[in-house]
């Protein structure tokens, strides 16, 4: 159970709660929630001969029933799950491993490593997309040249241009960029484990790797939980990297199309495709539902089961 404190005074209006909540709620409601819902509401409308008319769930029927739309939607959703899976399977374990190594108090230069590994996270997508396209380019040859130098030239392929590899390559670039986030969060969590607990473990002969598995890992589970759900939400809202590297059509042949790029294309339009705020809002609502389901599964299915220790 979360360690919520029971306040001593009960039924009166506790003004301090209002004061604590008011600024955040006001700014958030006015600048974010109202505009968002003002837009999402458009999902229930359509434009007929220049007039905005209420059509109920018609747009959703189009989205899921018309093969032109549903094919794109399911393709984007499936790609999005693959994108997320790679993050969970690659980014988070690497982040945890790096944090575990870094948290060793005797390690020299840990400050330097920590800063260096975090640097990709602070770069803009434009820079990341450009740099990796340059490195992976079959023409300017940084990657092929390097593989050639170790005799593995045959392994090189124009990864970003192949349907089978484009999405995975992009996911790995994204992992490269964001591995600093789980690393930092886990690092902070590991440092806040009191030494007494570890020392008590040592008295029982639990050290090294087994100390990590048996003592530290259970203690940082809440942080891992947060990271997982943050990764989920960020991945299902992702857009910029793929847009920067592959454009709004998320080529080749939509193999790197995820919900974010599909939404952008539909909502704002692209090239000759006119923006369609109504269908766009329908897609946004569907994305919102997907994310909401994921977050609820986490909040009610997982978070309540994680033991939380007040340290």
């Amino acid at each position, binding site marked *: 159970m979360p360690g919520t404190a029971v306040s001593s005074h009960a039924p009166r209006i506790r003004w301090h709660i209002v004061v604590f909540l008011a600024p955040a709620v006001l700014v958030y409601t006015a600048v974010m929630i109202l505009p968002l819902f003002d837009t999402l509401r458009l999902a229930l409308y359509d434009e007929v001969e*220049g007039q905005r008319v209420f059509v109920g769930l018609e747009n959703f029927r189009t989205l899921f029933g*018309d093969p*032109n*739309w549903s094919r794109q939607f399911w393709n984007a959703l499936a790609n999005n799950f693959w994108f997320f899976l790679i993050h969970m399977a690659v980014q988070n374990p690497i982040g945890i491993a790096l944090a575990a190594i870094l948290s060793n108090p005797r390690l020299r230069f840990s400050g330097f490593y920590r800063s260096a590994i975090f640097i990709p996270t602070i770069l803009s997508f434009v820079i990341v997309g450009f740099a990796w*396209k340059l490195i*992976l*380019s*079959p*023409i*300017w040859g940084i990657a092929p040249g390097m593989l050639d130098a170790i005799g593995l030239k045959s392994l090189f*392929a*124009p*990864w*970003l*241009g*192949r*349907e089978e590899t484009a999405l995975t390559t992009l996911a790995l670039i994204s992992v490269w960029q964001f591995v600093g986030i789980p690393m930092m969060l886990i690092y902070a969590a590991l440092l806040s484990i009191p030494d007494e607990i570890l020392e008590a473990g040592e008295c029982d002969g639990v050290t090294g790797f087994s100390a990590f598995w048996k003592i530290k890992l259970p203690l940082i589970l809440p942080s891992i939980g947060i990271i997982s759900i943050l990764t989920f939400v960020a991945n299902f809202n992702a857009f910029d990297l793929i847009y920067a590297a*592959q*454009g*709004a*059509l998320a*080529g*080749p*042949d*939509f193999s790197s199309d995820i919900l974010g790029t599909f939404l*952008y294309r539909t909502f*704002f*339009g*692209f*090239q*000759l*495709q*006119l*923006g369609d705020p109504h269908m766009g809002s329908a897609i946004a609502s569907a994305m919102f539902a997907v994310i909401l389901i994921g977050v609820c599964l986490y909040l009610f299915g997982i978070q309540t089961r994680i033991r939380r220790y007040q340290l």
Partner: protein
Amino acid sequence: MTKRIFAGALLGSTLLTGIAQAQEVTLTIESWRNDDLSIWQDQIIPAFEAAHPDIKLDFTPSAPAEYNAVLNSKLDAGSAGDLITCRPFDASLALYDGGKLADLSDLDGMSNFSDVAKSGWSTDDGSATYCVPMASVIHGFIYNKDAFDELGLEEPATVDAFFAVLDAIKEDGGYIPMAMGTNDQWEAATMGYQNIGPNYWKGEEGRQALLSGEASLSDPEWVAPYEQLARWGEYLGDGFEAQTYPDSQNLFTLGRAAIYPAGSWEVSGFNTLADFEMGAFPPPVPNAGDECYISDHTDIGIGINAATEHPEAAKTFLDWVASPEFATLYANALPGFFPLSETPVEIEDPLAQEFASWRQECNSTIRSTYQILSRGTPNLENETWNASAQVIKGAETPSDAGARLQEGLASWYEPKP
């Protein structure tokens, strides 16, 4: 004649603005041409402000990929600039229909343009025009003259000769025969399909037949360009699947590739980047002696934000844009963007001249997907990008591509005979 119109327009507009407002106004121009920023700042704006000291101009471009989204958001919220650079056809038509662009049919300067030039920015029935045509771009092939001389090659006139040239370059091995990639997709469609296609579907004739429903995208004349594209793959550089548009430009201007499927807008950039001599040839015709067709696409226009606070000043500016003076200035500041006004304009750049000369020999048409046909879902232009890239990579056969596009188009488009 034109001089008189210009002088009249100038006089009329100065009088008008003189009466309407003595104080200075500043007009903001929305544009996607961020590459032209310095040309506007250093040449075009000073020229206009010298003639109209009471009107100041502010050119605020955004990146081409975001332009439509940014512009529409600003127009909806009412924070867009006074003057709007117009994409051709439906994107701007939607703005006009939505009341965002002012009707310019009775602008004096409009008389300088033919109906064809105005078609990119007129309603379907041609009754109203809402943007002043600024320029069109022409497709063709730019080649490295030094490389051609070295290998003893000549400009190919027919498709067979074209592939013979490509074979010769490939055999020699010193150059990549052709610089194009499929990563960004639009190159394959725009510089590929729309470049070579008009020779097969006979330009306007084929395009009108498609609009009226007499032709279908799975007909031989519409599939044939894909058949040619399918043969391009083996002449492109290694890993062309991941080659981007800037990659292609750099491959060619660094002298590594011999031929570049081009749009004329490349001319000014290539002039500064390449240190070899360049030539250009129009898309080769299927059989010797065939009539030739080129894509001479109305690409850029400029209109007035219907909500502007300075409509008179904006009209003054557009009259100037419609004038021969602007046409000459623009054509020579940006060689490769060809003015659409009926007065012939002296173009100084030799490469741009070459492109422009094809207008005399060949029949002009516009890109097949731009007018009306990209209004529905699936979007024909996007599908054409996809199909062109797939066909070049060999991931889809030409006939499958044609059948898929036709099926998509037929699912929403009802031809009006």
